[in-house]
């Protein structure tokens, strides 16, 4: 039992560190974890859930706005990008946030192709992150089911 737990914990640790190293997550995610405790044991999961819902909604808005060929309201697109930038920043979704920064610039420049490209990238990026985080949560679950505790991962 212990050997399994130890192995899972190591897997979890390595995986988490890799997410930071590959730029999927930044230290804001670490801050979020600090807010989780016995009083709010599912805080991170709840916040991430809200974030991904936001992604779907906002990307939908952006897609619709960009669909108005010839009469694209770049301010409207920009407003959704701004919101997504805010929430991705608050969650520690580093790559998504980075894309939003470029996206915002394209909106301001009213660059249609640039915006469409960014939209596609943001869509891929948030889905990738969602999968990665799901994998991370699954590892946590496995550790707990094996009778172990999820280790604090020190990202330094």
């Amino acid at each position, binding site marked *: 039992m212990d050997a399994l737990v130890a192995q899972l914990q190591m897997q979890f640790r390595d995986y988490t560190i890799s997410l930071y190293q590959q730029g999927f997550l930044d230290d804001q995610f670490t801050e979020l974890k600090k807010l989780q405790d016995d009083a709010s044991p599912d805080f991170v999961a709840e916040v991430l859930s809200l974030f991904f819902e936001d992604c779907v909604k906002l990307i939908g808005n952006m897609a619709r706005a960009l669909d108005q060929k010839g009469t694209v309201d770049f301010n409207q697109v920009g407003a959704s990008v701004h919101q997504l930038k*805010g929430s991705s920043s608050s969650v520690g979704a580093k790559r998504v946030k980075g894309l939003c920064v470029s996206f915002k610039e394209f909106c301001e420049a009213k660059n249609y192709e640039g915006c469409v490209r960014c939209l596609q990238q943001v869509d891929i990026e948030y889905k990738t992150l969602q999968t990665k985080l799901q994998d991370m949560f699954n590892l946590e679950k496995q550790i707990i089911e094996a009778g172990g505790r999820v280790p604090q991962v020190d990202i330094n």
Partner: protein
Amino acid sequence: MGMAAESQFHVLAVDDSLFDRKLIERLLQKSSCQVTTVDSGSKALEFLGLREGIERNHPNALSTSPKLHQEVEVNLIITDYCMPGMTGYDLLKKVKESSAFKNIPVVIMSSENVPARISRCLEEGAEEFFLKPVRLADLNKLKPHMMKAKLKNQKLEEIERPSKGANVEPEIKDSTEIGIKMLPLQSEFEPKQLHLQVVQQEEQTLSNNKRKSMEEGLSADRTRPRFDGITTAV
């Protein structure tokens, strides 16, 4: 006995984003604050008991609608800057212009680092300006305000008590009978008319709290062990 809960530092958090509300609520709870969240500036004013145009011109607003105010005791307002309708800045102004609530510290949050915006808010009377995403460490800047509020209540009780004499009415056990309980956080050396009026009521509750707590062998501080540590550090 709900006394302990009522003496917790109560923050009113204002943000139009559900996501950000959830975040700031957790941050504040983690910092041992009681939190109320609303999604707009107008709802914030409603919660405070400030309705458009009514409060400002009524010097007797405190006494004419005690029922309205009795549930509300806000020690700090933290608000997002960019909100549809009433911005955080507008809310700040309204609070500072109100005679009843101008002493409540207001903190502005924003995802954008715009120096002009920051100085405008600070000039209008904002205590702090936090850049989003707000972190636990940022909320540490609020601890002095929390300590001041707590110490102020204790100090006022000590200062006011000798001069009260026959005015003391120890029968007021239930704090809901009290009108607005304002905890002004500015310098203790700035006497304010309104402040004194409210303070008298506040002081009675506090002396009852203290007396009760002492009788029951419970220190009011026990409910917030964090602050004991901070007191000694200061």
